[in-house]
């Protein structure tokens, strides 16, 4: 297939090289420098998609980010699929594969189009809300079919083969947009020495200069762009980011830039020369001092009947395709305008050697230089008129032109039908205010330029088209001035540079024209599209206003205007103007338009960066991780830590490599601890070193219990509450010296507790002499527990382990396996226990030494599950499992751990006397013994007193911890029960999902060794 619309010469494409690509299964040719859109136009492809709601054929309208229709599915392989790629922003590469996103069986002959044609009348805005209501039971069925038509492109079904990353950028001046204003601003700022970033969304920097017919300093405008870019490239203080779109403007000048690193090369990122993976896209997280918005303006199309038939384009897009890409998107052009600047489309078309049928100008007497030039070239100019309708099915075949009365919104003259295949329109320009709008600053309507100009917060500047300036000389001057100003604001005076002289051209004033009147009233006229992607019509907006939707936000939501992937770049102002006309108000009275990030859509992967897969969240390991892995541990996630959960061993009898189940392993591990000795890696427990003359006083304030009388060498269990009286953490704290303590916290609570201690010290009690330092990672903690623990430890330590000289709840210092160690005789299992703490770099040596000596005692490693069973047998709580933020120390029956008469009103004390904490019937921690010892209750099972009660059945509590105890050979549980402390011996019921009801007796929380003798041996 030949490139029928390719010009003979011109454009910034490389005609020496051919690229082959596929669209809807057909192969086409293009050139480097093409976008997918320009290549499709060059090949004469008119229909690129079907519309979302009415399934109408649609063609390319624009040449940039504002394109509503040419949204395609990209990707040659399944994993490389990219939905919703805007063809106008996709560089062409060899082998590109794209498809239309809608249309069945294909985009040219689409059966849904029939539905659209016939059904269009029955689908006004809001029609969903008015129907499909009866019968109620059928909605899900209706919806199933409604959903079938949802969506544009599709998600791949395979995981993404590509990687993405982030770069944290910091600069003094960020310039967004590298058109004339942006280049001027960047150059001015760069020459001051300020750190400058200049980004631009297009393949090439230069913006409108790349398709300009004007000259600068007597040279084609693009030459000046090249020269400035060259200078900027050479400056160390400047970072240039082409193919990089500024998508979100967040607080305090934090701007996200989305750089498409390899999307112009292939659908999957190629490897680098060294074979390394490279990012498909990169998100620059920029913190800027000052920001210059040089984002230009979007041309507004006119809204006329049939304006969505393929072959309707923006006037400026026509020029861009001709001058930049060497493509004339048709044979005969009719141009409908309200301003001078759009005349260049006709001049460019004419110069490309194709026919300009007419320029239809809404103004009665246009008189600018380009108007004169067009007339001089013999182009017919029809004044006081507009294209009121484009005719055609798959492609424009004619334009219906008539004289109109703009103020009266009427067609006033005879309709003339002009044969043509292209209608281009221009209704003026809308500054691209999206980014400024993200900051929360409201734009203001400017009657002179007929557009919103951005509201600007401190440190944000708008230059050139973004601020409503369109004449090239003015645009450059504004860029220069703002570049100097922005640099100066960061402390870098700049003398700027000498502006190149621009042509002086006289432009006549534009007139306000948005929707073009038709002979028929809007509701009866052929569809006049405002938002093509969402099939929003002028009639739809009129209907919305009739139904009482008067705010522009209501209109947008009722009609879905502006909710597409183009975010209303073309349609929003026209829609507001139409709503204003219907409501007989002015545009600013109808509302303003609030844009939210993103300016153009951003790949999830780019936002995620490398925070995915293995790097989604840190995995924290103890110093013994390698050993645990080598010994087959199954791991449990506890916060960010990976902790051994249990150590399944090969089953002795089966011999076929089968491993123990959780239940089997835990039973074995539990027995080892109760009968011989087990070992646990407890290094994850939070450890906080506390020093200072007031350390003891501080502990007394932050813990519920007393700390005044803890001697050096001793340890104490402590409970921590928040000031609402609810338990928040617990752990053992040791007195290392008079002014020196070592606190342990729960594994999950470590960081939060350290911050909690600092909070109270820094904000309430700064007078206390105390400091806190995390030593969690410094120490490795190995817990050996069980009747043989002493014998084992004695073999490898110089510490005197005599039961009377090193008692329960004491600590000693010495050497273990030749390594300096602090040993704490505390117990979370109820057995004789030593917690050995050594500097973490020695952990593996000490651990393995213990195993060498421990083998004869049956030393068994155990994980968190066994730890939980053993502690529960003793009635020891786990904060966060047996408590849930609504449990006081008293609810836990831990009055023994509450210093009611401490002199200082410690954290949590006052709350214990509030009405709700004093009341009867609070849920209290108890033990539960299932009547059937074989039953292991479900954790989370709800407890009732009357299982025959109708639903809703009153619940009195729930099971917090439940296990099978190999020691007791029975299931047992901890639970909270209303008034439970007074209900020992009572029977409760647990009705389960499968219909069975378990029966259990409320008992003490201590199931094993109630007198606590074993830990004292």
């Amino acid at each position, binding site marked *: 297939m030949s490139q029928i619309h390719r010009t003979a010469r011109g454009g910034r494409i490389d005609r020496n090289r051919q690229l082959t690509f596929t669209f809807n299964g057909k192969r086409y040719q293009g050139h480097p420098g093409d976008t997918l859109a320009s290549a499709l136009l060059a090949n004469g492809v008119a229909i690129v998609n079907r519309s979302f709601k009415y399934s109408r054929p649609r063609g390319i309208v624009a040449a940039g980010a504002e394109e509503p229709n040419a949204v395609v599915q990209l990707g040659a392989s399944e994993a490389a699929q990219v939905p919703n790629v805007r063809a106008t922003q996709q560089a062409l590469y060899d082998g590109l594969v794209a498809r239309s996103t809608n249309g069945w069986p294909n985009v040219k002959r689409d059966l849904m189009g029939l539905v659209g044609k016939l059904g269009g009348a029955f689908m006004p805005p809001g029609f969903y809300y008015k129907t499909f209501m009866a019968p109620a039971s059928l909605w899900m069925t209706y919806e199933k079919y409604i959903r079938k038509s949802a969506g544009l492109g599709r998600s791949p079904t395979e995981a993404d083969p590509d990687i993405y990353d982030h770069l944290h950028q910091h600069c003094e001046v960020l310039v967004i947009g590298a058109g004339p204003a942006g280049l001027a601003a960047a150059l001015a700022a760069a020459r001051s020495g300020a750190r400058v970033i200049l980004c631009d969304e297009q393949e090439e920097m230069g913006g409108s200069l790349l398709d300009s017919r004007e000259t600068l300093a007597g040279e084609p405008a693009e030459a000046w762009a090249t020269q400035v870019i060259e200078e900027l490239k050479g400056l160390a203080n400047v970072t240039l980011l082409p193919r990089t779109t500024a998508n979100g403007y967040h607080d305090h000048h934090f701007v996200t830039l989305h750089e498409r690193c390899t999307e112009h090369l292939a659908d999957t990122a190629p490897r680098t020369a060294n074979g390394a993976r490279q990012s498909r896209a990169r998100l620059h997280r920029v913190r800027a001092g000052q920001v210059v918005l040089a984002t230009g303006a979007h041309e507004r199309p006119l809204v006329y009947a049939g304006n969505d038939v393929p072959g309707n384009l923006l006037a400026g897009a026509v020029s861009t395709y001709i001058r930049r890409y060497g493509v004339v998107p048709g044979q005969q052009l009719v141009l409908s305008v309200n301003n001078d600047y759009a005349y260049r489309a006709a001049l460019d078309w004419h110069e490309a050697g194709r026919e300009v049928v007419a320029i239809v100008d809404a103004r009665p007497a246009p008189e600018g230089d380009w108007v004169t030039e067009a007339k001089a070239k013999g182009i017919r100019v029809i004044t006081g008129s507009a294209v009121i309708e484009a005719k055609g099915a798959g492609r424009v075949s004619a334009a219906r032109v008539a004289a109109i009365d703009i103020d009266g919104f009427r067609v006033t003259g005879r309709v003339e039908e002009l044969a043509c295949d292209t209608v281009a329109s221009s209704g003026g320009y809308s500054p691209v205010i999206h980014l400024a709008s993200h900051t929360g600053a409201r734009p203001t309507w400017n009657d002179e330029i007929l557009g919103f100009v951005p509201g600007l917060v401190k440190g944000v500047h708008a230059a050139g088209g973004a601020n409503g300036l369109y004449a090239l000389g003015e645009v450059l001057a504004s860029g220069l001035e703002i570049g100097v100003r922005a640099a100066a604001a960061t402390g870098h005076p700049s003398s700027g540079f000498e502006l190149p002289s621009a042509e002086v051209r006289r432009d006549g004033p534009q007139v306000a024209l948005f929707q073009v009147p038709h002979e028929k009233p809007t509701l009866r006229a052929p569809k006049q599209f405002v938002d093509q992607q969402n099939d929003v019509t002028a009639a739809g907006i009129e209907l919305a206003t009739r139904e009482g939707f008067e705010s522009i936000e209501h209109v947008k939501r009722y009609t879905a205007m502006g909710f597409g992937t183009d975010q209303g770049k073309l349609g929003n102002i026209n829609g507001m103007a139409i709503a204003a006309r219907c409501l007989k108000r002015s545009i600013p009275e109808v509302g303003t338009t609030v844009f939210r990030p993103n300016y153009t859509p951003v790949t999830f992967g780019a936002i995620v960066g490398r*925070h995915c897969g293995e790097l989604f969240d*840190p995995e924290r390991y103890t*110093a013994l991780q390698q050993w645990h892995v080598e010994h087959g541990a199954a791991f449990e996630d506890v916060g960010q830590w990976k902790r051994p959960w249990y150590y399944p061993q090969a089953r002795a009898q089966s011999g076929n490599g089968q491993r123990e189940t959780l239940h089997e392993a835990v039973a074995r591990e539990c027995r080892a601890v109760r009968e011989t000795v087990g070992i646990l890696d407890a290094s994850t427990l939070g450890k906080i070193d506390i*020093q200072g003359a007031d350390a003891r006083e501080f502990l007394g304030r932050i813990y519920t219990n007393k700390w005044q009388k803890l001697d050096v060498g001793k340890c104490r269990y402590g409970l921590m509450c928040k000031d609402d009286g609810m338990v928040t953490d617990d752990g053992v704290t040791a007195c290392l010296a008079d002014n020196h303590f070592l606190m342990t916290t729960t594994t999950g609570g470590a960081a939060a507790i350290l911050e909690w201690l600092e909070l109270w010290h820094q904000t309430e009690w700064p007078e206390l002499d105390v400091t806190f330092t995390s030593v*969690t990672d410094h120490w490795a903690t190995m817990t050996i527990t069980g009747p043989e623990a002493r014998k084992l430890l004695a073999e490898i330590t110089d510490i005197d382990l005599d039961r009377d000289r090193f008692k329960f709840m004491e600590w000693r210092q010495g050497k273990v396996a*030749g*390594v300096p160690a602090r040993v704490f005789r505390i117990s979370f299992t109820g057995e004789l226990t030593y917690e050995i703490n050594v*500097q973490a*770099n*020695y952990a593996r040596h000490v651990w393995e030494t213990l195993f060498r000596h421990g083998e004869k005692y049956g030393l068994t490693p155990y994980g968190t599950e066994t730890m939980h069973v053993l502690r529960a047998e003793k009635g020891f709580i786990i904060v966060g499992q047996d408590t849930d933020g609504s449990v006081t120390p008293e609810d836990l029956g831990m009055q023994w751990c509450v210093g009611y008469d401490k002199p200082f009103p410690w954290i949590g004390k006052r709350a214990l006397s509030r009405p709700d904490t004093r009341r009867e019937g609070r849920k209290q921690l108890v033990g539960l013994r299932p009547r059937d010892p074989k039953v292991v209750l479900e954790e989370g099972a709800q407890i009732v007193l009357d299982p025959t009660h109708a639903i809703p059945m009153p619940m009195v509590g729930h099971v917090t911890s439940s296990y099978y105890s190999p020691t007791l050979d029975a299931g047992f549980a901890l639970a909270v029960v209303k008034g439970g402390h007074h209900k020992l011996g009572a029977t409760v019921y647990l009705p389960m999902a499968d219909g069975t009801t378990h029966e259990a007796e409320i008992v003490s929380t201590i199931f094993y060794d109630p007198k606590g003798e074993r830990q004292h041996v």
Partner: protein
Amino acid sequence: MSKAAVFDTRTDAAIAVESPLAYSYRRSGAPTPGPHSQVTIRERAFLGHLILRGGAIVLDEAVREVLGMNLPGKPQGLVHDASGERSIQWLSPDEWLLIVPGGEEFDFENRLREALGDARFAIVNVGGGQTLLELEGPKARELLMKSVVYDVHPDHFPVGKGVTTVFAKATAILRRPSDTRWELVLRRSFADYCYRWLLDAGEEYAIGVVR
């Protein structure tokens, strides 16, 4: 003598030690630096790390007396002694990080405690819980830009500066001891994550690990 417990947690006995990255080397390997390597990293394990807490004036005097160097009084300050082997870094208005060759820390702790006498201060040995990673090479700064939220431009991060900041989803201390070298001080339990992050982010620079 201070009312705090001092304890030499290190031993001179010939006992095997494992650095915080021991597991990582086994799990993720350590690519050898090659001719294309634009970044290299090297772990400086088993150094002595002490946290000093207290008032700047009091500590400054003791540090000068014991170590012969000034306590950096300004935020983000990092100073080295003449040999470059010992450094003190400002962490907060009442907190400094002292890094010395492994084995010296206990002696320094004792001498500092003696010099400080009854003053209000604290010293904590954290050497087992931290490790230091050096980064060098032309792309070291860009690798850091991928990893930390702090501005590492030389204008903003001159030699002699150190900060605690966000490293990917962990926390790290980042220091600039010389024109060509950066240092990361990492917590032991996060070290493997940071190491894997650096290898992943450094792949395009052919990152190498000096061992």
